[in-house]
C-alpha cells in the first residue's frame, strides 16, 4: 500500500458500490411495502418453504371443500323437503281413509280409492324430484328418476292381480311389483341404484353416506299402503267388505308409517348437522391457516415504512458526500 498517495479510482469505486447497496435496499423495501409481502420469501424463511407450501395447499383444499359442501347442503335440504311433502300426503290420505267404516257405501269407497291415486301421484312425483338435473332418490344412478309414473304402477299391479282378486293375491302382486320377488317379474316400481348409496366428502377427513333411496323400506312401506287403496278402484271383482277391510288396515299401517318417515327425516337432519358442523370447522381451520401464513410472510408495514425512510435518508447523505468529494481537488486551488 503506497504511503504517499491514494488512487482516484479507489474513492470512485467505493462510492459506486455503496450507492448500489443502498439503492437495491430501497428497491426491495418499496416493493415489500407496496405488496404487503416480503420480496424474497425463501430468504425470509431461510429456505424452509415446505411448511408455507403445505399451509397454502391445505387452504386451497379447504376452499374447494367449502364450495362443494354448499352443493351437498342443497341436496340434503331438497331431500328433506321431499320427505316432508311425502309425509304430508301420507297424513292427508290417512285421515281420508279413516272416514271409511263398515257402513260406508261403494261410492264412498270409490272416491276414497280415487283420493289414494291422487296421493300416490303426488308422492311419486315428489320422490322423482331432480335438483340440477340429478335425481335425489335413485342412489348413484342420478340420471334416472327412481320411480315409474303412478298411473303405470297402478295399471301394472292391477294387471298382475288379474282375475283372482282376493286380498291375499293383491298383497302378493303388490309385494312382487315392489320387490321383484316373484318368478318372472323383471320390472319393479323402483328403477334406480340397488347396490350402493351416494357418498359425499364434507371435510378433508370425513365422508357422509346418504343411505336413502326410493327403494328404502321406510319409504316404500308408505307407497305400498297407498297403492293398496289406490288399486281398489279397478278391482271390480273384489267384495265390498274386502275393500273396506283393506282400506281400514291401510289406514292403520299409514298411521304406523309416520314413525318410519320421521326417523328418515331425523337421519337426513343429522347429516345436515354434520355438514354444518364440518363447514364451521373448516372455516375456523382456514382462518387459523391464514393467520399462520401471514405470520410467515407478511411484511409489517410500520417496520418496512421506517426502514424505507432511513434508507432514503442514507441515500441522500450518500449523494451529498459524493458531491462534496468531487469538489475536493487540487486543481481548484492551483
Amino acid at each position, binding site marked *: 500500500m503506497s504511503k504517499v498517495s491514494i488512487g482516484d*479510482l479507489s474513492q470512485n469505486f467505493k462510492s459506486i458500490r455503496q450507492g448500489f447497496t443502498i439503492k437495491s435496499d430501497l428497491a426491495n423495501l418499496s416493493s415489500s411495502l407496496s405488496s404487503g409481502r416480503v420480496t424474497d420469501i425463501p430468504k425470509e424463511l431461510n*429456505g424452509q418453504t415446505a411448511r408455507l407450501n403445505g399451509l397454502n395447499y391445505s387452504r386451497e383444499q379447504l376452499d374447494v371443500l367449502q364450495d362443494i359442501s354448499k352443493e351437498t347442503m342443497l341436496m340434503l335440504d331438497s331431500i328433506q323437503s321431499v320427505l316432508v311433502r311425502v309425509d304430508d300426503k301420507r297424513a292427508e290420505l290417512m285421515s281420508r281413509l279413516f272416514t271409511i267404516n263398515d257402513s260406508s257405501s261403494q261410492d264412498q269407497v270409490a272416491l276414497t280409492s280415487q283420493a289414494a291415486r291422487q296421493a300416490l301421484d303426488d308422492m311419486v312425483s315428489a320422490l322423482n324430484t331432480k335438483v340440477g338435473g340429478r335425481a335425489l332418490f335413485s342412489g*348413484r344412478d342420478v340420471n334416472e328418476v327412481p320411480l315409474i309414473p303412478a298411473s303405470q304402477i297402478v295399471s301394472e299391479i292391477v294387471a298382475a292381480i288379474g282375475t283372482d282378486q282376493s286380498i291375499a293375491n293383491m298383497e302378493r302382486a303388490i309385494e312382487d311389483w315392489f320387490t321383484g320377488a316373484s318368478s318372472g317379474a323383471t320390472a319393479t316400481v323402483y328403477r334406480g341404484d340397488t347396490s350402493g348409496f351416494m357418498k359425499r366428502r364434507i371435510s378433508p377427513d370425513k365422508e357422509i353416506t346418504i343411505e336413502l333411496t326410493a327403494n328404502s323400506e321406510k319409504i316404500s312401506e308408505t307407497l305400498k299402503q297407498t297403492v293398496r287403496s289406490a288399486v281398489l278402484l279397478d278391482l271390480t271383482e273384489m267384495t265390498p267388505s274386502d275393500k273396506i277391510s283393506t282400506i281400514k288396515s291401510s289406514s292403520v299401517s299409514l298411521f304406523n308409517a309416520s314413525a318410519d318417515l320421521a326417523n328418515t327425516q331425523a337421519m337426513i337432519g343429522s347429516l345436515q348437522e354434520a355438514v354444518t358442523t364440518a363447514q364451521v370447522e373448516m372455516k375456523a381451520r382456514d382462518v387459523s391457516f391464514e393467520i399462520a401464513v401471514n405470520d410467515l410472510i407478511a411484511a409489517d408495514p410500520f417496520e418496512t415504512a421506517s426502514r424505507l425512510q432511513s434508507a432514503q435518508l442514507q441515500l441522500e447523505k450518500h449523494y451529498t458526500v459524493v458531491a462534496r468529494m468531487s469538489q475536493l481537488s487540487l486543481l481548484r486551488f492551483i
Partner: protein
Amino acid sequence: MSFSGALNNAITGLTASSRLAEVVSSNLSNALTEGYARRSVELTPAQIGGRGGGVQVTGIVRFVDPGLLADRRLAEAALSNDQRSADSLSRLETTLGGVDGSSKLIELFAGFERALITASSDPASETRLATAVTRLGDVAAGMQDATRSIQKLRQEADAAIVADIAKLNTGLANIASLNKDILRLKASGSDPSALLDMRQTAVDEVATIVPLREIQRSNGTIGLMTSTGTTLLDGRAAVFGFQGTPTITADMTRESGALSGLTLDGRMIDPDTGIGRLGGGALGANFMLRDKTLVDAQTGLDDLAVDLIARFQDPQNDPTITGGAAGILTDGNNPLNLIDRVGLAGRISLNPAIDPLRGGIPSRLRDGLYAPETGPVGDSSQINAWVKALAAPRPDALTGTTQTAPERLAAFAESISGLRLSAQAAVSFSSAKWDSLRQAELANGVDSDFELQQLIKVEKAYAANARVIETVNFMMQRLMEI
C-alpha cells in the same frame, strides 16, 4: 574550466525535469484507466570520469503490488464462479417458481386436486370430469416444461464453456506474444511499461476463467499456472480444446460419453471430472452446473414423476388397473419402468384412454381406467379413492422416505430455493472479499492531487536549472569582454 561541467549538469537537470513532466502527464491522462499502474521516475546522480556529472534517469518504475494483485485475481475467479452458479440457479428458481414462494408445479397440482374434489361432488357431470383430467394433463405438461428449462440451462452452461475455452486460448496466446514483445523492448533498452500494462489486463481477463498464479521470470516475461498446478503458459501457451453439444437432453451426461470434457494439447485432461484441475473460476462453475447441480435438479424432478406415475398406476387406488398396465399418468403412454428413470419428467403424460384431446374418455376417472362398462353415474367412490391416493404417504423410489404427493412437491420446490439461497450467500461472501481487495488495489493507482504536486516541484526544478544556465552564460560573456 568547470563552466562546461556546470552547463552539462544543468542540461541533465533540464532533461530529467522534462522526463518527469512527461511521466506526470502520462499518469494524469491515464487517471481513469483501469489496469494502468502508476509510473514514477528513478533518478540517480551521474558519474563521469571521477567527478559528478549531473543527474540521470535510470528507469521508469511501474508501481504494482504483486501480492495484492494475485489475491485480487484469485478473489475475482472465486467471484465469477459463484456469480455464474447463482445466476443460473436464480433463473431456474424463477422458471420453476410460482406466486408467494410456491412453485408452478404446486399450483398446477392444487388446481388438479380442486377439480378432482369438485368432480366428486357431482360425479355424473361430464364437464367436471373432463376438467379434472385436463388439469392433470396440465400437471404433466408442467413437469415436461420444467425438464425443458433445466436442460436448456445445461445447454447454456455447455455453450458458456465453449466461449470460455475460446477466450482462454486467445488470452494465453496474446500473453505469450506480449511476453516476446516485452523481452525485445527490454533488450533494446526501451521502456516496456505500456506493454506491461496490456499484459496485466490480459492476465486479468484470463484470471476470471481459471484461478491462476503469475510467475515472474528474471527476463521480464511471466509464466502462468493454475492455483492447483496445471501449467497454462511457460514460454509456450497451452492450447485447450472442448467439443460443444448444442442440444442436450436429460439422459446425456459426461459419463455416458454424450458430453465432452476438456482436452489439453489434444489429450483428454481428466476422464473422471472432465475439467481436471482447472476448476474454481467461471469455467469450473459451468462444468459444475452442467454435470452436477442441474443433473441433481433433474433427478429430483424425475423422482417426483416416479411418485406421481406410481400413485396413478397402483391397483390399490384403482382395481381395474391390473397386470402392470399403464395408469392414468404414463411414461410416454407406457407403464412405469423404474430402471428407465432419467428424464422421466420429460416423458410423463396422460394415458390416451382418458385424455379427451386424444380421443380418450374422461369418465374413466369415475368408472375405473379399464372398467369394461360404465358404472352408476353418481358413484363417487373411485374419485374419492384418487383424492385419498394423493394424500397417502408413499415411499420414495430411492431413499424410502414416505411423503404425500403435495409434500413431495413442496420438498422439491424447497430444494431448488435452497440451492439458490446458498449460491447467493456464496456470492455475497466472495463479492465482499473482492470489493475490499479491489479497493486496496485501486488505492495504489494514480492520485491526481499527488501528480499535480509533483508538477509544481518539476516546475521549480526546471526554473532553477534554467537559471543556472543563464548565470553560466553571463559569466562566460563577462569573461569575453576582457
